[in-house]
């Protein structure tokens, strides 16, 4: 069974352009990117050069949110950012959120509430929901809808995703009491 790439995959270069080496700070670690063509997006470098395929590519246009990552603590579509442009920034991926446990209740609620079907949009939604509830812990139903409207899901019709968000809100508000 072929596997996802491990760390430091040095993919080959394109022939018509000089390749570049640079460093990115991803999930708390400095990562050397070697031989990258300058046209490569942050999403491509994360997936194909740094062995982090959790962020997904579904539209290449910033419409679907499947590639969402936190760049200097702001949710961005990593398909719209050139990797080399992200030098000096702090990048957090869904893999990083998983490893840190920071989004554990979001992830748990998504599974328990039935918010996952094919799962392709799911990592992007984990990042988006984590970010939403960090900034708006008491987001209203309409704020939840508005906030997640940049993350397309084709399977669920969003109902169980909303339910997962409310489930996290309930859990956290109990924890605050």
């Amino acid at each position: 069974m072929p596997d996802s790439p491990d760390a430091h995959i040095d993919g080959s270069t394109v022939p018509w352009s000089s390749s570049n080496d640079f460093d990115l700070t991803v999930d708390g670690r400095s990562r050397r990117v070697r031989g990258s063509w300058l046209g490569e997006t942050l999403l491509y470098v994360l997936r194909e050069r740094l062995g982090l395929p959790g962020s997904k590519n579904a539209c290449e246009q910033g419409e679907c949110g499947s590639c969402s990552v936190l760049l200097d603590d702001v949710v961005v579509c990593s398909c719209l950012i050139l990797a080399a442009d992200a030098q000096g920034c702090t990048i957090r991926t869904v893999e990083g959120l998983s490893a840190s446990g920071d989004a554990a209740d979001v992830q748990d609620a998504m599974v328990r509430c039935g918010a996952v079907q094919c799962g392709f949009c799911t990592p992007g939604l984990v990042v988006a929901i984590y970010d939403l509830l960090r900034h708006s812990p008491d987001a209203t139903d309409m704020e939840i809808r508005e906030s997640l409207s940049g993350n397309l899901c084709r399977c669920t019709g969003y109902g169980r995703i909303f339910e997962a968000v409310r489930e996290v809100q309930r859990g956290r508000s109990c924890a605050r009491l």
Partner: protein
Amino acid sequence: MPGSSGMTTRTRTTGLGKSELRPDGIPKVRGEFAFSSDLWMDAMLWGHTLRSPHVSARIRSVDLRPALAIPGVRAAIAASDVPGRPTFGLEVADQPVFASDVVRYHGEPIAAVAADHPETARLAARAVLVEYELVEPVVDAEVALRSDPLHPDGNLFRHVRIRHGDPGIVGDVVVEGTYEVGMQDQAFLGPESGLAVPGEDGGVDLYIATQWLHVDRDQIAASLGLPASLVRLHLAGVGGAFGGREDVSLQIHLCLLALRCGRPVKMVYSREESFFGHVHRHPAKMWYRHHADYAGNLVKVEARLVLDGGAYLSSSNAVVSNAACFAPGPYRVANATIDAYAVRTNNPPCGAMRGFGSVQVCYGHEAQMDKLAAALHVDPVDLRLRNALRRYDRMITGQVLTGVVPVREVIEAAVGLPMPSGRCLEDPALSLPGGAGLSADVSDVSRGVGVAVSFKNIAYSEGFDDYASARVRLESDDSANVTATVFIATAEVGQGFVTLAGQIIAEELGPFGVVLAQANTSDVGSAGSSSASRQTWMSGGALMLACAAVRHILSERAASELDEPAAAVAYDTGELRSTVSGRRVTAAELLISGPIDVEEVYHHRPTMALDADGQGDAHLSLMFAAHRAVVDVDRGLGLVKVVQVSTGQDVGRALNPLAVTGQIEGGIAQGIGLAVMEEIILDEGRVRNASFTDYLIPTSLDMPDVLATLIEQPEPEAPFGAKGVGEPPTISSGPAVLAAIRAATGLELTRAPVRPEHIALSDGIHTVSDPSEDRSSMLAGDNAGL
């Protein structure tokens, strides 16, 4: 949340009927689940396809040399490099692997390349020199029926003719209409992708997202000129399907490139290429004439249905059969004259999408039922209830409905759910049509309510040899832990069969560990396609048989162990017990002598072909659903906000209520997408909106609240009593939205999707004399105004 009518009686509930959680849920939320686009191998190359920029052309020459001259390019192939059958196809191999002499649609593959870097591959594909001679395309199905053949097989894929009852009979009231449905895309989020790995034996391993591994394998092997045993398919993570992965897309190209290069090759379509890479839902033009008596009983339905199949056959023959068989909707009608055509054109190929032929005709028959209700001055819900199919009624194909037929129940459930309150109190501006654009003027907004009802077949019809295989291996380790390993080639596309498989093992065998082996073509026979809402029934049935075979072998071993006749041994959740002596022996003890490994094949009852008059018992079982939609419409801007959809759905039995809810909500999203926003825009056959910027699917702000009632009346023939649940939500939800927009605006609106200009710039054709007439009270049941 869906409620349950509680009509099911269960004898055992160890595994089925509970909302068990997905076994792949945790890896999916952690970003660790490997989709087909996530695969990676050492020394892997990237593939890319060159596609025709023209709709219709003759190919004078293809020169691959400029691509091969680019450093980093390892292979470039075209039609002459296909060693085996030059064509493929689900039913008939009428579609070229690469176009060789003729281009028949915009985006048809011409060549493919493999290179070290995806950008190099993309550049190399663009460097291939192709000389085209343009040919005038035929993009209208009616014109194609009269045109010179676009393909050696001709332009008429299939004409399904149904003559039922008295063709000359005329009703007291007659209504007529012409309706049109646009081309919808499945728009699964995970684009087509896969990884092909050449084997040392001259064969190839393909890791692929698909709906049916074995039928892909057979088509690939034929074109590679290899025996099927040398083409091994493995299911990679599937990012949604909805019918769009039933046909071969990049499978053959990938294997050809890998075998040519002797290295693994990965290919991932961009979103743009994905729009060109798979079939779409057939656009349809439908003429209908309904006859009824003054009491409101349907007397006759006449229809002429023309489905544009695009350039190649795909599954058009089955889609057009569904359109014909289900043309009247789930209503009792003794006389019917239906002519349904699927036609070849130079438009993009069309085939399977969720609802498969039932969706298109539902827009027609439900608009007609509303028209008939208006002509008869009766409540549209009452008209539907009066004519609703019942058990042992006949379809227009003459088939007697022997399964459960809860049409009345689904309608009453859908209209009986609470209506939404007034406009959203929390944030009225955002909840108006136009949403965050804040463009709506509240004084221009009116609310409408509409209802639609639908039905569709489960599994394959018309005599197709439909079956599924399942293999179960039961073994015990040194600590007496019993594990059931399930080998089944069922494509998990998101629907949750992986969850159900564990539930079935728990129900049928007991509380053992369950391991689901990766689905492939090597370890087990075909499971058939994850389509036609069939896998719960078919693969579920196969797994049930395999478990029964395991129990049988355990009983034989127990009889020998206990020294009693097999008939005196009872199976009791993992233990075997003598009904004579009461002595017990555990499954673990019985497995010491060796594991049990059995494969079983489940066939559903044979169905029949339709005869020359479209008569015959062609279908296994039918699923029914009703939807009520509530919409707000800004008449001035033509903007629609779908506020709520309520549904009653016939599920037989909900084996996993949470998964059923997910299917209902997700299916409704796709249904309303077709009603108000989703369409592939074609300009003389050219696709104009192949992106998620231009082809819009519902977002979280577009999605209405959904209320659902599950009608659980176990289907006698179905394993576990469960019907399929995936397709019905997508069928009548959209037509209900159209009915609601008609109610809100008074416009006739004969085309889906409804666009703002159809409302804002309409010439004012009205279906009802007084658009302000409040029909919501009639439709809302007892809970109106809650």
